[in-house]
Every structure is written in structure tokens, then in C-alpha cells.
């Protein structure tokens, strides 16, 4: 019983409470519901479990074993060893929510710093400490638009991932918000701004725009978008690649009321897509409508600086059925990791890394252009570290299969969602992709695509 310290003291403890056996403590369960012996295996030793995991995990192929080129919110990014060392301190990971601020000073300050750095990066004023992932964060953002504006429609571009759309639908089901799609421009892959303008009405609670968008394209019509926002009474929710903000203008400068993004890139592992980190930040005027927990700086009895959770009247534990969100356990440890990550990077590091990712994306695009069997649908457009690729001869699915047989995992196939674009897949690269990886991809495509 290596985890149960009271095996020896059991009798004494039972005696103290006037019971004979542990079974006595379960007498209140009606006999008919008392379980037969549970059908689970015998406990295993650490040695056996390590062997077991060694074997079973060898059936996985990690990025180290086999490079992948999937685009999307989640990508392989470098995590500095100091980030890993710090968030693996049990002082952080084995704590609960900082309900007693006097005993949780460390976590609260770390989270305050997270909020501060996310706000610097996005140009916003307030940032809750980390929601589940980018998709559910979009859901929360939409719900927030409804709360703020009391209006009934939320507009999203057609070219948003189907996962986001599906999660959004589930998140907005309860608040009676209708999600409407506006088209993208098939000539350049960007959202069709006039199509969008047509959809805007007095019912529009919010609009969602991504930059770079789901095709990896950077929209350069920021002034237009800003004017659109200014002349209308809705909230503009922007989805960004947080890393790209090292170089690209923050959404605060083109009209955003709310910024959301996937925080995995900021010092967190991919973990097969979970756990992730939903980053959200807003203008200060909306702070009382935000979902999730927020840390405030205050003072203690001696007037020394101290931190605690604040704006709690939005929270489920106080507001119950009228709270801004049901979220309780969130992704706090990942927010800590991102705080450490951003502190290590600093302005200089982040700018360098953003440029590097631009360079990788550019290099990938250039390399793919040379492959005769594929084409780049929106080749002329600016892009960050992702490129949409069209296979001219084979199905994208078959191409991926052949790539796999050659030790490469190809791009994220979008054909099903966007049949109008043909056999397309979204390829992505980061600072983790070496020249050799790209070369191997290109050579293999040349051979098999």
C-alpha cells in the first residue's frame, strides 16, 4: 500500500469512531447498490508499469521520430528547458486554485504576470488566466458578445476550422445566438469583406476574424476592418497566431474588442491536442463580462502588494446559473508555462522567433512551388508559417498516405471542408522544422504526389 499511509493505524482509527470495520462506514449504501468486486486488474508495480508504458508508447511516433507538417492551431514548437523545469515544480503543479491568496502568493503573481504579458502582446487590457483551448474560447467569446450587446447573431467566416464551428455551435446553443457564416474570396483566400458587410445587421452581436486565417494567409486590409468595426455596434473578436504578434501589428490597432488564440505555441507541448491553452484578452470595459478567473493586484493588511482572484461576481461559484461561464478548472499550469516562456523570450526573443517562423513558412512555400505535382492556391498572398497546397494529380489523402510510408506526416487535409478548393491540405512549419525536413518533404512529394 505504497500510497495509503494508514494501513497500520486502521484499527485504532476505526475504534476512535466506534466502528469495527471499514465496511461499517458504507452501511448507508443500500445493499442492492453495493458493488460486487470491481473488475479491474490487480495493482501493478512501478517496474511493471514503466515496462508497460514503454511498450505501449513505442506504438506512437512523435515529432522526433517522424516530422509532421500539419497546419492548424497546434504546431510543434520549441519549449525552453527552463520552462519545463519550472512548471514541473510540484509547488505549481500540485496546488489547487489560489483560493487562499496568502498561501498562494507565488501562483497568483505568476498569473498576474501572465495577464500582463498577454495584454502587452495583444494590445488588450485584461486577460483571464487561461481557458481550455482556442475552440472553446471562441465559444466563450461569442457568448460574451451576446452578453455585452444583447444581440442575437454571431458572424464567422466560412473558412474557419470545422472543429471551431462545431464547438461554437455547442457553446452558443444555450444563449440563443445564431452563428452565421460569411464567405471568403476564392481568388485570394481572404474573407470577402463586402460579403461580410452584407451580413451585418442590427442583430449582429459580434464578428469573428482570423489573422492569419485558416488558410495561413495574412490579411493586409486592416484599415478597412478597423473602419468596419468603428461604424457598427458589435464586438470584433479576432483570432490570432500569438507568435506572429512578434512582428505583426496587434489586433488592438485594427479594431479588436476581444482577442483570442491558442496558447500552446507559448511554451506548451502538443500532447496530441490536449491539454491546450485558450488565450483571451479584451478591452477593459468588458472585464465584467469575461469568462474565467482573473487575478488582481491589491494590498495586504500592512499595505504590501498582494494578489488575489478578483471580479469574482462573474464566477459560477457565486453567480451559479447567471455566471459568465461554467468554467472552473481551466488550464492554469499552461498559463504559468506561458508566463515563464514569455519572460524568457522577451521582446527580442519573440521578434526573432516570429521572423524565423515567417522565414520557415516562406521557405516551405518556395520549396513547394518547385514541386510539379502540387500548386499553391493563394501563392501571392502574405503568409506566416502555413501554406495551403493543392495536389494536382492525386487525392490529398493518398498523398498523405504515401508520405507516411516515407516517414513524413503531410499537411492537414481540408478537401472535405472546402471541396471547392480541390485536393487541398494546409502545411505548416515552425522553428522545429529543419531544412532537411523540408527538403525531404519536397523530394518525396516530387516522387509520390
Amino acid at each position, binding site marked *: 500500500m505504497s500510497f495509503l499511509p494508514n494501513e497500520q493505524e486502521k484499527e485504532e482509527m476505526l475504534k476512535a469512531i466506534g466502528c469495527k470495520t*471499514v465496511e461499517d462506514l458504507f452501511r448507508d449504501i443500500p445493499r442492492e447498490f453495493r458493488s460486487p468486486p470491481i473488475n479491474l486488474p490487480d495493482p501493478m508495480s512501478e517496474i511493471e508499469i514503466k515496462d508497460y508504458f514503454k511498450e505501449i508508447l513505442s506504438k506512437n511516433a512523435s515529432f522526433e521520430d517522424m516530422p509532421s507538417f500539419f497546419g492548424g492551431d497546434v504546431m510543434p514548437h520549441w519549449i525552453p528547458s527552463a520552462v519545463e523545469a519550472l512548471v514541473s515544480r510540484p509547488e505549481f503543479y500540485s496546488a489547487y486554485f489560489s483560493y487562499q491568496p496568502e498561501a498562494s502568493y507565488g501562483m497568483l503573481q505568476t498569473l498576474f504576470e501572465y495577464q500582463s504579458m498577454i495584454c*502587452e502582446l495583444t494590445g488588450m487590457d485584461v486577460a483571464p488566466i487561461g481557458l481550455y483551448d482556442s475552440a472553446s474560447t471562441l465559444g466563450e467569446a461569442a457568448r460574451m458578445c451576446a452578453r455585452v450587446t444583447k444581440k442575437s447573431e454571431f458572424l464567422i467566416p466560412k473558412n474557419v476550422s470545422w472543429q471551431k464551428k462545431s464547438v461554437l455551435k455547442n457553446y452558443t446553443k444555450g444563449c440563443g445566438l445564431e452563428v452565421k457564416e460569411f464567405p471568403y474570396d476564392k481568388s485570394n483566400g481572404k474573407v470577402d469583406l463586402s460579403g461580410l458587410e452584407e451580413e451585418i445587421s442590427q442583430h449582429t452581436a459580434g464578428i469573428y476574424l482570423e489573422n492569419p486565417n485558416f488558410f495561413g494567409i495574412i490579411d493586409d486590409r486592416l484599415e478597412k476592418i478597423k473602419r468596419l468595426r468603428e461604424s457598427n455596434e458589435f464586438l470584433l473578436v479576432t483570432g490570432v497566431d500569438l507568435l506572429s504578434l512578434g512582428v505583426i501589428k496587434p489586433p488592438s490597432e485594427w479594431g479588436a474588442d476581444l482577442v483570442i488564440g491558442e496558447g500552446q505555441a507559448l511554451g506548451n507541448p502538443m*500532447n496530441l491536442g490536449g491539454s491546450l491553452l485558450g488565450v483571451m484578452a479584451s478591452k477593459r470595459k468588458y472585464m465584467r463580462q469575461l469568462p474565467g478567473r482573473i487575478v488582481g493586484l491589491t494590498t495586504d493588511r500592512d499595505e504590501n502588494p498582494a494578489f488575489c482572484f*478578483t471580479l469574482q461576481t462573474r464566477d459560477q461559484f457565486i453567480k451559479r*446559473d447567471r455566471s459568465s461561464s461554467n468554467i472552473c478548472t481551466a488550464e492554469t499550469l499552461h498559463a504559468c508555462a506561458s508566463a515563464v516562456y514569455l519572460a524568457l523570450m522577451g521582446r527580442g526573443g519573440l521578434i526573432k522567433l516570429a521572423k524565423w517562423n515567417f522565414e520557415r513558412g516562406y521557405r516551405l512555400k518556395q520549396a513547394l512551388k518547385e514541386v510539379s505535382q502540387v500548386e499553391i492556391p493563394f501563392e501571392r498572398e502574405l503568409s506566416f508559417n502555413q501554406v495551403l497546397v493543392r495536389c494536382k494529380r492525386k487525392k490529398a489523402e493518398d498523398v498523405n498516405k504515401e508520405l507516411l510510408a516515407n516517414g513524413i*506526416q503531410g499537411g492537414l487535409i481540408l478537401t472535405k471542408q472546402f471541396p471547392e478548393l480541390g485536393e487541398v491540405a494546409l502545411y505548416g512549419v515552425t522553428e522545429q522544422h529543419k531544412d532537411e525536413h523540408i527538403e525531404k518533404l519536397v523530394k518525396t512529394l516530387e516522387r509520390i504526389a
Partner: protein
Amino acid sequence: MNKWIVPLINEVGSLNKSGVRLPDVKLPFDLPTDLKRKDLNLPGATEPEVVRHYTKLSKLNYAIDEGIYPLGSCTMKYNPKLGEQIANLPDVKNLHPSQDESTIQGLLEIGWSLERMLCEITGMDACTLQPAAGAQGELVGLLIARAYFEALKRGRTQVCLPDSAHGTNPASATMAGYEVIEIPSKKGRVDIDGLKKAVTENTAVFMLTNPNTLGLFEKDIKEIARVVHSKGALLYYDGANLNGLMGWARPGDMGFDIAHLNLHKTFASPHGGGGPGSGPICVKERLSDFLPIPRIKKSGTEERYSLEYDYPKSIGKIHSYYGNWGVIVRAYCYLLLMGNEIKKAAGQAVLNANYLKKKITQSGWYVEPYKDVCKHEFVLSCKKLLEKKGVRALNVAKRLLDYGVHPPTIYFPLIVPECLMIEPTETESKRELDNYAKILRDIAEEDAETLKNAPVSTPVKRVDEVQAARKPLLTWKELVSISAERK
């Protein structure tokens, strides 16, 4: 403001410093000026500075590895180190969610096996690991119920729950589009008559946690299930309290139709200061078609695992991908470590709770609102302290910090005045329990002033939460601009 314990990181760092070495790559093309960022006020610091900064902060943070953390409803049990080691392997961490199934067979097998185990433990038929936490699990459960009734073409608009329910329950119900009907408890348990009145043909779901948030087993569960089902409604199990039953009884057997579990509570994955967690949903067969996609399928004699999307009745997705794998792996590791001895763990958790309750209540200062055998947790009221000394539960909690232990949950559930909600878990030793009880008894004897001034030995003294709410100061940018104004 006076003295900082640890200066903010922007004081430590500066705009020209960085703790990483990266190549100085040139932008490969000209970015239009309109797109270019002008300034980025993100100070950096060297690796030694960053490490020291957050190491110092970590040391100002109480955690399970340091001592007892008996937050009721939170199941703060010890997190085995093996789980950390395994969840940090590259074959768990460095997998892209879009990878070909043939390259993630290991994790899929783990996920599938865990789902089977969770069904066995809960007495349910099907399971999804997608929800990222308990509350998201609740939302999924309620969306499933909604889809279920929509499929039956019998839309229902209400969710009933006891007034002792956790805040996420009503919040999730609202998010799923339901009206919430709260049923007042009777003697700390569901009032069957109240239930009968509340549950109608318009009730979609009755949400219940059992043992309930007072730590009491809902003995009338059979009758509760009968009442709920008799109106065609579904019975939802909030599994946050499964640690009081695990291995001894199964919600599925009691008539629950849907259950969420908190892997970060019952199954020993660490809380991470508030996440990542994982809130799997288990359902009875007839609801399984509504589970979110994808679902893990095992097929063939070769035991291939796949992620299946073809479930037309599914509610769709609730998370970008398929769940929080780091947590899933830890929970699975825990179940391998414990195996069928989870029953012993729950037994010890219940014994620990009853023992601790006994020891604390010995002095008479803390009152048991509903005298009964408790399960894994129990609730005590400090109202006697309030009456006799003017001391509140909050003061008791703060004073506990001075003794170097973490306070219980306070003021929840809302139905017990001045309450302490205490859940020691099975991994606390008798020694720790005796110590905790003694501290609580000693505190009750201390003078009121001492308690009201507490804590005095923590990094900061009593924190002014009112000021924090009145003048929210949420970033260092705001701090800097306020300080500048003052000058």
C-alpha cells in the same frame, strides 16, 4: 504600496534582455508597414534571472507535496510521481493531434482502455474523454440530454438540482440552454417531496452528486431515480465526489444515466493550480450515440484503434481535439498503480474523513449540521464560534495558514452557515489528521483578535480582496500608469 516580496518580472527584466539564444533570421520579404508592429513592450530576462524569479515564487505557493490540502469537493490527493514521469515522455508530449492513426496507436489504446475502466467503475456503458474539465463534462452531459430529447421530439426546458449543488451545475445548465430549478435540501439530503413537485414532464435532467456536497450518501437514491425516470427525465451524476464511493458502489447501478468524472480529483492527476483537468462523460447505452465525436474504436483481431467520426446523432465537438491526454495518461497510470485496490483507497478516504470529523468535533466548537456517517468529506459549521466569539469561518481558515496547513473549502455548500467543508483524502496519514484536528481545536480556543488578525506568518498578511474588486488592477501596465499618475 510598500514592499514587494518578489519584484514583478518586468522589474527584473528589460526590453533588451532575453533568456534564449535564437538565430537572427531576416524576414524573407517586405511586410507592408501597415501590417508591421511598431513596439512590443515585453521585457525579457536571462535564464538565471527567470529561473530564480519563478523558483522564488513557487516557494511562496502551498501545494500537496508540502502538506495536507483538505479542500472539500476538490479531492486533493497525492499525485504519484510515476504519472509525472510518464506523461512527460516525448511519445506523449510531442504528438500532433492530426497525426495518422497508425502513429498514435499507443495513446489510443490507453484512451480506449481508460474508457473501459471508467465504465466499469461507474457502471456505465460508453465514455468520452473529450471534455477538458468537470464543468465542460457537465455541459457535454447536458447537451447530450438535449440532443436526446430533441431526437425524441420532446423538447424539455428545465434542469433540476439541489440547492447544495456545485456552482458549475447550474452554470452548465444555463449554458446548455436550460432553466434551472433549485430544490431546497432537507436534512442535508434531497427532499423527495420537493423533488416530486419539481420534476415534471418539462424536466430534462436532475443533476446530483452522490455522496452529496455535504459528504452524505443520498440513501434514497433508488426513489430519486424512480421519480426522475417516471417523468421521462434523465438522472445526471456529478462525479466530483466519486472518491467516496469508488469500488464500493456504482452510479450506473443506482439509476444514473449520465456521469462526469474529474480525472484531476478522483484519479490523482495533479490540479495544476486550476488545470489542466479532464472531465470524461460516461453514459448508458441509449445515450451513447449522442456522445461527442470523435470516439475511440477498437476493431479487428489485430487490435487497431481508430478515431471514429461517423455518428450522425452526435452533439459534435466540445474541444478542438480529443481531450487532455496528459491528464488521461496520468489517470490511467494511477489506475494501473491502484488496480482493484481503488476500493481500499475509497475506504481509507472515508475512514480518514470520519476519523478527522470525530477528532475535530470532540471539542464541541465545530458543529456537525447533520449527524451521520460521512463519506469522503464532511461539513462543519462555525456558527457557535460566531455566536460566542464573533469569529467567522473565514477567520478560522486564515488562522489555519499560520499553523502551516491549508484551510478547507469555506462557505460552500451555501446551505450550511459558516461552514467548513473538509476532505482529507486517503493519502493523508493519521499523523497529519491528528495534527490538523488539534490545530482546529486549538484555534477555537484562541482569542478572537488573534483569529481576526490572521494570518501573520504567511508571505503576505490578510489580503484585501474588497479593494481588489473595487479597483481592479489587472496588469503591470496599469500599475505603471497608476504609479506615474501619482507622481
